[in-house]
């Protein structure tokens, strides 16, 4: 169907977008890549009266290295991340960007839109929660930064105020000896995963010094599997420790049955993905160049 009629506003800067949002009140909504918002509008599940378009704001689409961090402008497209050599310095970020949906969606969809949408199945939130990530926000009262773990509060819910905007996403470079991998199982390219696992490790020899594990699509938000992390932290990685981490991940998952699979299957799957992702993360931590691709039906 066609969306309901709406007014279109083109922001010239983030500041102007904030002003527009505060004047439009609840009826206003930002438009970034439109890859979540437009389908919802076409199904008439979302019916905003006003759209504030960010696509013509200059200088908010970038990937910069700065003081040990990577900074992503809110309007940076998934495809820009996919093809960025700078972003590829954190391989798990490349895994994420390159595995989102299909070319069309990646060419339009943005990292800022994804984080702001807080879709329980969104890839970015899962991957970025294994890294030290903060979200920079701009509001009427000025700027603030919020750690990702405090930013997404529930399914489709964030800490953003009504006229606040995500302006930048800042990811700290992982320490030396780190490696990570992101794996999802998808029934076909242009759909969200059935389940996914992001694993980021810091290794010293065979011993895992630190571990961050996040599970996607098996809860209302990305789930930090802290028991699974503990199963690895300080341990020599072996089949046994990996199995323990996978088991702990299964226990942490809280999946719902839907067309993507039964709850039991998703729970089982997410453990399998964690285990495979650990293996890949270790190889990368050792400095190996590993191409990672999602699993497809």
């Amino acid at each position, binding site marked *: *169907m*066609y*969306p*309901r*009629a709406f007014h279109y506003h083109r922001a010239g800067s983030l500041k102007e977008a904030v002003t527009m949002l505060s004047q439009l009140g609840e009826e206003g909504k930002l438009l970034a890549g439109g890859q979540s918002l437009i389908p919802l509008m076409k*199904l*008439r599940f979302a019916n905003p009266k006003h759209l504030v378009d960010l696509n013509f704001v200059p200088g908010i689409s970038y990937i910069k290295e700065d003081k040990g961090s990577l900074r992503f402008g809110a309007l940076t497209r998934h495809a820009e991340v996919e093809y960025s050599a700078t972003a590829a310095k954190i391989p798990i970020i490349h895994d994420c960007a390159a595995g989102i949906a*299909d070319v069309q969606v990646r060419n339009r969809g943005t990292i800022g839109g994804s984080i702001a949408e807080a879709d329980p199945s969104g890839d970015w939130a899962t991957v970025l929660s294994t890294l030290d990530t903060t979200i920079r926000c701009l509001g009427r009262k000025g700027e603030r930064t919020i750690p990702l773990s405090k930013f997404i509060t529930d399914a489709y819910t964030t800490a953003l105020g009504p006229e606040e905007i995500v302006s930048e996403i800042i990811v700290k470079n992982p320490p030396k000896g780190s490696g990570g991998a992101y794996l999802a*199982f998808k*029934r*076909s*390219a*242009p*759909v*969200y995963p*059935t389940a996914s696992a992001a694993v980021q490790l810091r290794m010293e020899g065979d011993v895992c010094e630190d571990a961050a594990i996040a599970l996607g699509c098996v809860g209302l938000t990305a789930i930090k599997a802290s028991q699974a992390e503990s199963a690895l932290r300080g341990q020599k990685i072996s089949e046994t420790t990996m199995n323990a981490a996978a088991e702990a991940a299964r226990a942490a998952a809280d999946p719902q049955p839907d*067309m993507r*699979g*039964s709850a*039991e*299957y998703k729970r*089982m*799957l997410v*453990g*399998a*993905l964690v*285990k*495979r992702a650990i293996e890949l993360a270790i190889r990368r931590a050792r400095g190996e160049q590993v191409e990672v691709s999602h*699993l*497809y*039906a």
Partner: protein
Amino acid sequence: MKDNNRNWVGKPLPRKEEGRLLRGRGKFADDIKIREMLYLRFVRSPYAHARILKVDTSRAEGLPGVVGTLTGKQIEPLTQPFIEIGPEPCAKIRDFPLAVDKVRYQGEPVAAVLAESPSLADDASELVQVEYEGLDPVVDAEQALKDESILHESAGTNKVWNGVFEYGDVEKAFREAAQIVNIDRLHFHRFSSTPLENNVVIGQWDPKDDHIYYWCNNSFPSFAIQFLAAHLNIPIDRIRVQTFDIGGSFGIKITSYPQMAVCALASKKAGGRPIKWVETRSEHMTASAHGNERTFRDTRVALDQDGVITAITSRHVDDCGAYPRYEPLGCVIWSQVFPGVYRFKNARIDFTQAMTNKCPVGPNRGYSRMQHLWFLERVVDICAHELGIPADQMRLRNYIRPEEFPYTTPNGCVYDSGDYPKMLAIAKNLIGWDEWKKKQAEARKQGRLIGIGIGTTLDSGTNNFGQSQIVNPHAPFSGNSQGANCKLDIYGEVVVAVGSCPQGQGHETTAAQVVADVLNISPDLISVRTGFDTERNVHTGFSGTYASQFAVSGLSAVHGAAQKLKAEMKRLAAFVLETQEDDIEFGRGAQGPELRAQTKGKSINYWGLANIVNVNSAVLPPEMHDITLNCRYIWRAPFKVPDTKKKYGNLTMTYASQLHIAIIEIDRDAFIPRILDYVAVDDCGTVINPAIVEGQVYGATAHGIGAALMETCVYDAVGNMLTSTFSDYTPITAMNMPKVKYGHIETPSPHSYSGAKGMGEGGAAPVHTISAALQDALFSSGIIIGDSFNNADTLFRAMVGREIYQADKLVKLERRA
């Protein structure tokens, strides 16, 4: 019969239609805009089964830009219910294109709104208020047969049709069987086709001439107009249907006539303004048409000591959704391939069709035969595994043998030609059967699960509509026919028109190849009219594009028309060049194609001939006046009406066959089935255009792999459709496709003039093949594959949950001493 002049037929000519389609210059129904056109949006039922208490359209009508609305109550007195093909009591079903008193599936149209723009129509559709009273939905066919909740009160039952197909001496075969395999339940799932282009109708009921004009993408217009004329109380010659380029149909667009009816009625109400309806993808997924779902119960298979099947008995329950529409034709169409590719002579199939509160079915690619062929392939593989016979050996022991063609099946069908053992040998060779067997054994030792599966299937084409009389002795249909016209236009252009409406099958190209060989000219010089148009007068009651038949019915008609034209050209040239007809040669001169008098050294080109007949006719003597150079030919299939009591007779002209092999690995931690290797071997007799045939094979293979592993129409217990978007239905994409190795053989059909067989549906070969491979991987773990749809979740539930597919519960083997 055979044509010996083969310069063009058999060549992989690039498609004539490629240039426009690949450049985005195709002309599709939605590209058409007509002055004063209005846009229609349906208001659809959110419930699967409910009584309509009230439809209030006043708010919608109040919206500026809205021209009118239409409800079921309004159209009921103006129309006849649609024709029912089936017999009593289901002939009493009152099927209207907008629900009148009740809704019977989620997404059923209840009202329509007409507005000046598509988005206004969408807005207005939200303002129509419908009050419903919920009724018990029934979504399972076997449950529906209990008649606890009736869909159509006028019929009084949910049972559409029941019949027993029995041949040979079943009891004797079971008495003498060395072993008997019992299979409790098998189930073929509901899936559909996802053509790139959804349904589109522009309809105009023009008050100036009281004609109805359609610009649309219906894929069987001559069938649609028969339904529409009776429904709308209008003489059939006042309905003109035109189709253009069509972005796929796969049979699903055959049943768009209800929407066509609404567009005409809406146009009438709007004073004759043309009405455009463009279906959304969600509408297409919930409410266009799905494929038939079928459950196979209490199957018993008698075998001799070598694993040769001697008899099968089974009870089949087909689910046709909420309205029969094209059904119950599917209740007999499966019997075109009654024994599949196998030799067993004794069988009894008790076939029942039921209505449920789900989207009505339509003749989806592989229609009704694929369900049965899948059943037979499951039977063969389950028996093979139970008896410890390798799948290839089991097939070789049971296949109809090459020397037995033409082969008459137990129910009187005549399989024209084929060589299944040879296809198997080619497929095994292409896949590297022996190496895979070794790899499989090694993998097993490492605990890996690899399965090797074979699927052998048939694509029966050009059907005998007389089979409709098996489901309803009063059905006024039999035989099959197609029309074509071939003419020399005034300046000598060769112009061909056919009653088909291609959806990507390359009819323009293959028709031109056929005519090129008849006239000995290049296909580039032949223009083939695209699309369908009732006013071209080349259609018969069977014209359209469906059921794997163009190469036979369509091209036979084209060939006939071209032969007629050729004969006239020869006669005329002999007169003009003052020679005998057998002195005339069709060739090429300095000015293009010409007819030469070999003994006289004189010639006349096409323009010269066309000129005489069209604009210079005074030079013709009266005995030449019957020459028109405008030759219409109606081809008729040589069928007889089947014996409806015995359910016996030849139901189809040609039997293309497919043999696929898949190698699949199921990983042990995520249970994702992965195709490691895939071979498709095809036999459609003499090939008209190898590139087109190969393309059809890849397309059908993709569709089948999608159906086997990804695509399923799911309803919840109360009839909500859970797969109404591509995110849920997940149609197969290139990313999910394995590399397909293609092979083919040609066993020319003795039944068609060219030796060609219809093809394109592909018999859902991958569905059978993938089920077989999965079972091969899992049988040693006590699992049989009992459903045609399998994904990682299914395999997990079978292997870990042990909820489904347990061989010890579903299969019983009785061995006799």
